């Protein structure tokens, strides 16, 4: 079943690519049919998923290149399932909302490949396999920005390519470091998990930092974010949904799966640093959003800020904060998709994204009243207004993290206040005020164009009033992660920059030949209880 989720869209992409003389409309409908199939396949995973189990389910194993330690090992748990579902739903919406007539075969084919790559990355239980899937979506996305983007698309796409390639290189370095230093038999997640304790604490910290920077570029975390505003803004609205709603989650997923999941001790030690970093991300993202005049760029910076909540939840390492962080990934995906979709509609109808030029869109007859109303809803959800999914996620994070990082949490709460500020600016200037007589001859928004926004709004509202449907998928998994991390909490020896420096020195000038795995003594007072 999991393989079908990956290979069905790949086969679909191949079919579309080889289809001779098909019209753009037909290709779009075919791609939509394929994505509908993917959504059904996702349902096929979601429905029988055992929500009480913390471990991997629907596991698949196919030995592949054993000398390299590369196996085709898939599995899904409470961390990856919501993100797989998010990916399927958002990609369906991306295909539905695309009306691309320029090179449609390539366009829809690439979207399907990206979908497959992202799903594969979420499902991969082998580090190299994850890396392959992680890299697979790089070139399609580069092309999706460079061919179908805005005026500065080449610049944005190249920047995206360079940053993401660097991200991939760092992640690969981290994975290789983990496996080689721990002398793992292969790159399977479980195998690596078992040998991590054999790696000295300082080196663990170094590897974790490498992974954090690697995944931090993808997420992105300030100051590794500079590719994001350009890429989001220059990408067409559907591709921006892909980038913000789905791709960014690869970064946060990687942080949790491989950072926290493989290196809980190092993660625990670096947690105060991560919490502080989260504050910077939240505050910087919000303040930068306030300063923007382009509503798409404003939403892009908003996205950066909201990634800080995920980081804070991960840093706090309580059951509540981690489930909140996973919820925030999903909530952020839906909310950002809604916001980018609405911004795309506004740009298409009004012809501008400039705050100074937009006004009075709430006007009932000549404006875009429903789009404006949904924009307000999206803004409210993003700002964490109760009753909407954004509130649930942020509340869980704050509730879970306050006991551990109180002042950092309070500063992040202040950050949500800033979120309200820029959304009030956006909504006040865009939706309210006077519609300009001289300009307001906007085409009407068709119901078919409203549908994706309404669907996303319905999900945001539903999960806001019925949060159980959001959190119960991942609760056992995140609880297990928190328990593992909790075992390292009382650790007397925190990994600081000093120990990392020492570890680098040890690496450069090894004092003794490598010790076989079995002979490595347990690390003093840092062994997990389980």
């Amino acid at each position, binding site marked *: 079943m999991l393989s079908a989720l990956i290979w069905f869209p790949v086969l679909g992409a191949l079919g579309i690519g080889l289809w001779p003389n098909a019209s753009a409309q037909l290709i779009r409908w075919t791609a939509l049919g394929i994505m509908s199939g993917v959504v059904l396949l996702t349902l096929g995973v979601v429905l029988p998923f055992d929500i009480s189990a913390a471990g991997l389910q629907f596991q698949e194993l196919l030995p592949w290149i054993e000398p390299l330690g590369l196996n085709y090992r898939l599995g899904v748990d409470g961390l990856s399932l919501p993100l797989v579902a998010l990916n399927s739903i958002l990609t369906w919406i991306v295909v539905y909302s695309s009306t691309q007539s320029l090179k449609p075969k390539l366009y829809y084919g690439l979207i399907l490949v990206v979908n497959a790559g992202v799903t594969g990355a979420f499902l991969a239980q082998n580090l190299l396999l994850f890396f392959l899937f992680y890299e697979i979506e790089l070139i399609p996305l580069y092309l999706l920005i460079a061919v179908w983007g805005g005026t500065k698309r080449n610049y944005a796409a190249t920047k995206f390519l360079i940053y993401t390639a660097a991200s991939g290189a760092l992640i690969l370095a981290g994975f290789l470091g983990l496996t080689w230093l721990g002398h793992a038999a292969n790159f399977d997640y479980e195998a690596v998990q078992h040998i991590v304790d054999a790696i000295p604490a300082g080196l663990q910290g170094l590897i974790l930092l490498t992974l954090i920077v690697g995944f931090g570029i993808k997420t992105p975390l300030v100051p590794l974010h500079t590719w994001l505003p350009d890429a989001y803004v220059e990408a067409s609205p559907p591709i921006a949904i892909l980038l913000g709603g789905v791709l960014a989650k690869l970064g946060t997923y990687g942080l949790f799966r491989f950072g926290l999941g493989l290196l809980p001790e190092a993660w625990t030690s670096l947690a105060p640093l991560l919490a502080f970093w989260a504050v910077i991300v939240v505050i910087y993202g919000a303040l930068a959003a306030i300063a923007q005049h382009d509503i798409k760029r404003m939403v892009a910076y908003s996205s950066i800020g909201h990634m800080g909540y995920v980081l804070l939840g991960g840093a706090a390492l309580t059951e509540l904060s981690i489930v909140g962080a996973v919820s925030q990934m999903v909530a952020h995906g839906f909310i950002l998709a809604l916001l980018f979709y609405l911004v795309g509609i506004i740009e298409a109808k009004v012809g501008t994204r400039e705050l100074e030029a937009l006004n009075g869109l709430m006007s*009932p*007859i*000549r404006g875009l009243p429903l789009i404006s109303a949904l924009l307000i809803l999206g803004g409210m959800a993003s700002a964490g207004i109760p009753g909407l999914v954004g509130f649930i996620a942020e509340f869980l994070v704050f509730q879970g993290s306050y006991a551990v990082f109180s002042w950092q949490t309070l500063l992040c709460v202040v950050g949500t206040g800033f979120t309200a500020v820029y959304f009030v600016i956006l909504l006040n200037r865009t939706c309210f005020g*006077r519609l300009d*007589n001289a300009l*307001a001859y906007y085409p009407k928004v068709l119901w078919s164009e409203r549908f994706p926004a309404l669907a996303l709004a319905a999900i945001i509202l539903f999960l806001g009033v019925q949060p159980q449907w959001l959190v119960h998928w991942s609760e056992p998994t995140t609880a297990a992660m928190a328990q593992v991390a909790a075992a390292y909490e009382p650790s007397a020896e925190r990994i600081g920059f000093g120990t990392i420096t020492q570890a680098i020195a040890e690496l450069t000038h090894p004092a003794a030949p490598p010790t076989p795995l079995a002979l490595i003594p347990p690390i003093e007072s840092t062994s997990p209880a389980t």
Partner: protein
Amino acid sequence: MPTLEASTKLPPSTHEFAEVIHRLEAGGAMLPDTPENLMQIIGIYKAYAVPMDFYWRDLLYIAENVFLNPLPFFKYFLPQKYLDLPNHYAGDSADLRIWRGAATAHPELLEFMAKGETGKMPKLLHHLFHDRVNMEFAEACMQAMLWHGRDMGWGLFDGYLDSDEYRANADRAITAYFKYNPPMLALYKLFPEMFLEQCRMMSYTANLGLFWEVMAPVFFEMSDIYDEGGFKGVPDAMNFLVNGIFAIAGRPIYHHVYIRGECFEIIPKSKGFMWLYEAALPYVEAVFYRTAPFRGTKSYNAQARQVPADQKDFHYGILYADVFPVGTAGIPPTLLMQDMLHFLPPYLVEYYQQHCRGEGDTLIQLGITFQRSMYCVTSAVIQALRQALLYPLDDPNPKHLAANRAFFEAQLDRFKRPEARLRDIQTQSYR
């Protein structure tokens, strides 16, 4: 009125609206003479005339019968008597037959009153669902006339409202009206000025009712003539209005109140208040040009001087109104737009479907058409004033022509304001 070529005896005007002034000097209107404009304004006159047929009847009913009822819940429930009230300018019994149709309420109006948008149901339910003619619009126009009339003290009619004679007449009517209502009589004794002010409002209600009683058949007739292929251009339509204005200029403006079968003449016909000077001109000044802010979705900040300090400098009328959003200026045009929507002629419905958002924004499109049509009516008033006070357009004396030009330029100075829609209506792209 003959349509003339632009005068060649004067150098071209240097006014901002020189083109419009030359058009007025040639006997044209402020609205460009195009078949599209003609079709639009005549179509909207028809759609305006049907609710107007209700407005004038109900205004007279309120002024004459509801009068000072402190709880006038049913003032918009027009009794049959007023639906059958013969129009003085239509039907066989007309004093001056302007419209060839019947003197009683228009059939389309009766049909709408019975069915509304929702379907047949008791009148009370139509009222509560607001599925009815928006009399609130008519009352807002009346209030604008009262407010600006009182402020400017224009004409003999408004001056008469402060006379001892009016006070005495009103006192008799008020005393009779509350003869069997001691609490209200006691209140009247305590606060006579308040009741008198209400009575003045009723007088203006009668004034507007009598004004629209004339205009409704004029617009019906224009629609009929257009349907028969009678108008060749916008100037023809404007000249019909000018001729109509002069034909009924002397129509008396009065205020009678009927209390238990007895007629109290608060403003008797014998006072000789003329329709043109005491109703038409104050109406144009108050409603077309001024009205009031604080309507619709846009609020004005008086402290930020967004509202002129002097009431006579107000400029929120339909000639300036922003009908795009939901009626952000002056008398809420949306209410009238909603009323006109029910009675659009088929050719106008088809026309709107071809532009902008089609059915989705017909309300706005017809609002802008209405704005165009009111520029045509204002043109007729300006030409009528020029005809009454100055010189013919074909006068051979250049000094007379110069005086005419000065008059036109002074009139068009009022549209130099940025909010004025005169610039917009010069092109068809303003929809």
